[in-house]
């Protein structure tokens, strides 16, 4: 009886042992042993790649750095305390509703920009999302479209300009808003103008005041952005953010 149980167990342990990569007598598997390394005189790829990545067109660097530190302080002393207060006074469903509402507003520029980039499928997706969420989701507070399998894919005018071959231009840090470049900053203004023209369902009038809506939008924008200054914990945060921003925008345009 006992023997009948033990034998398969023994076999199994033997098998498991055979499957694992060759371990030495300590049980260590030497993970670096099978890697292929460059010959000694040709070991500069990391440095070369990183130096190239650092090369972002940034003629206004000293100005940008000042604004960067200004934004950092603004974030620590104003934005984040406000967001903490907002999280304290509102329950989770309300915050989700607010995020959905503003995300739904964002479908309008996405629609325009998808059309402008001749992306028919994406334009249809944005239209469908906007209609479902506005009608079924009570003005965009719920997001039934995502549950139906329509994924949110945003497009902005900066991406449209990029699609038509406009280069990024000089890197800029916009006060209170953060990293951008000449092309995307222009795009932001254009998107804003489009939204203004639409004045979606006269929400600003019915909710009583442009100011409070804009304020809520700003708070929500900070609430949904997970970036925290100082989290990279590097004296070179400025350079790292600059690279990631520029490269991410390139990827979004290419995609």
């Amino acid at each position: 009886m006992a023997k009948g149980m033990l034998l398969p167990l023994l076999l199994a342990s033997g098998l498991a042992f055979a499957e694992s990569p060759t371990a030495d007598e300590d049980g260590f598997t030497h993970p670096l042993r099978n890697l292929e390394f460059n010959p000694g005189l040709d070991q500069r790829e990391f440095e070369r790649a990183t130096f190239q990545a650092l090369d972002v067109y940034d003629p206004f660097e000293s100005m940008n750095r000042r604004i960067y530190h200004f934004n950092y302080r603004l974030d620590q002393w104003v934005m984040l305390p406000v967001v903490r207060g907002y999280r304290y006074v509102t329950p989770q469903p309300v915050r989700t509703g607010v995020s959905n509402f503003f995300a739904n507003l964002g479908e309008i520029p996405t629609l325009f920009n998808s059309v402008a980039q001749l992306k028919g499928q994406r334009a249809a997706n944005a239209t469908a999302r906007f209609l479902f969420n506005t009608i079924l989701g009570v003005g965009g507070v719920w997001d039934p479209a995502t549950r139906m399998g329509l994924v949110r894919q945003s497009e902005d005018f900066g991406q449209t300009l990029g699609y038509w071959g406009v280069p990024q231009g000089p890197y800029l840090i916009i006060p209170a808003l953060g990293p951008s470049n000449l092309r995307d900053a222009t795009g932001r203004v254009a998107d804003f103008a489009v939204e203004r023209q639409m004045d979606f369902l006269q929400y600003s009038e019915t909710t009583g005041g442009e100011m409070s809506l804009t304020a809520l939008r700003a708070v929500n924008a900070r609430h949904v952005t997970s970036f925290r200054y100082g989290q990279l914990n590097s004296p070179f945060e400025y350079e790292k953010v600059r690279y990631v921003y520029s490269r991410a925008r390139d990827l979004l345009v290419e995609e």
Partner: protein
Amino acid sequence: MQLLLRLTALLALIVTPLHAADLGVEEYGYPLANPFEATIAGTPADLRAEVPSDDAIDQADYSLRLRPEREFTLPDNFWPVKQLRYRLARQRGPAPLMFIISGTGAHYSAGKTEALKRLFYGAGYHVVQLSSPTSYDFMSAASRYATPGISADDAKDLYRVMQAVRAQQHKLQVTEFHLTGYSLGALNAAFVSQLDETRRSFNFKRVLLLNPPVNLYTSVANLDKLVQTRVDGINDHTTFYEVVLEKLTRYYQRRGYIDLDEAMLYDFQQSTLKLSDEQMAMLIGSVFRFSAADIIFTSDLINRRGLIVPQDYPINQSTSLEPFFKRALLCDFDCYITEQLIPMWRAQYDGGSLTQLVQQVSLYALEDYLRQSPKIAVMHNADDVILGAGDIGFLRRTFGDRLTLYPRGGHCGNLNYRVNAQHMLEFFRG
């Protein structure tokens, strides 16, 4: 029958001579067999331990003023790190307190520290998260010499921070103190625990070391080596980053939209575009080289050594740091040890060789203490990239059955795997 049973038992002993206490691959169940994949991607979401959401955690960040003189000596653009910040998650009533020390270069809010916080908070501990002594903020705001690597000195700095935390949070009701750390933080934890045996501020009840380096020099040499791998597809027109990003872009174009999360990483590694071992090694190595650059720049600047930043070079908030970043990037851990660590150590302790330094700052220095302290345990992985030949043997000899060796996980990739989480909680429960 009796004889047969004894024979089988004997046979079992012969088949698995040393691995009797170790977990088998199948028994363990962690899915990622590739150590590099495990290191980068961590544990799949559905295999992680259940932890409370951030909304359910009562936590806040606090700051300590430990080195007031630095407020005058550090340049303006260091303003965010002139005070040391830490994070405390508090339980409602009296509870045990867990200190977590982050790994190389990591901030107190780094992903792995946060994950450990959630686990221990969920199990009823107050949790204090600390930045690594090798991190930019700790070096600037809390470190006496701002030249991390001398483990005993780093432990003294950490101990002072912990005492300051305790003083600042004197109203917090603490029943007992515990300590843990991962990667380099685990090595720090071992030295802090030893220091506590004489200073007795905390009387740590239990100390857990997660994936510590055994020989610090082996570990940094491994990490330095990772960026020297031969990656296919690199030529004069493209770089390593571009090759990786190119793959990602092609993958996204195929999928139709961008959605960057961990599930995507698994899917990506299943596709034909998957990264090779060499490419993943290079990615891991790059992350550590960036940490090295931060350490090298910060240490040089605070001590005004003039190796990276010329002495008396004026720096304010608008100064471009790019040239210094580039210089610091050209120096790896080995270069940091030769150019900054050893000279300082020699000046302080009147000479000594590299071998002596390595002996002093590695786990070897604590061998007797670790062997005799039942309150300290270690968890490690058989395929951890920071280990070298013989390191696991040292852990076996020193810790005996207080070593838990997992067959997979790479470097810290299995920290929030539910089996590991359960073992951690069991250990601290006692």
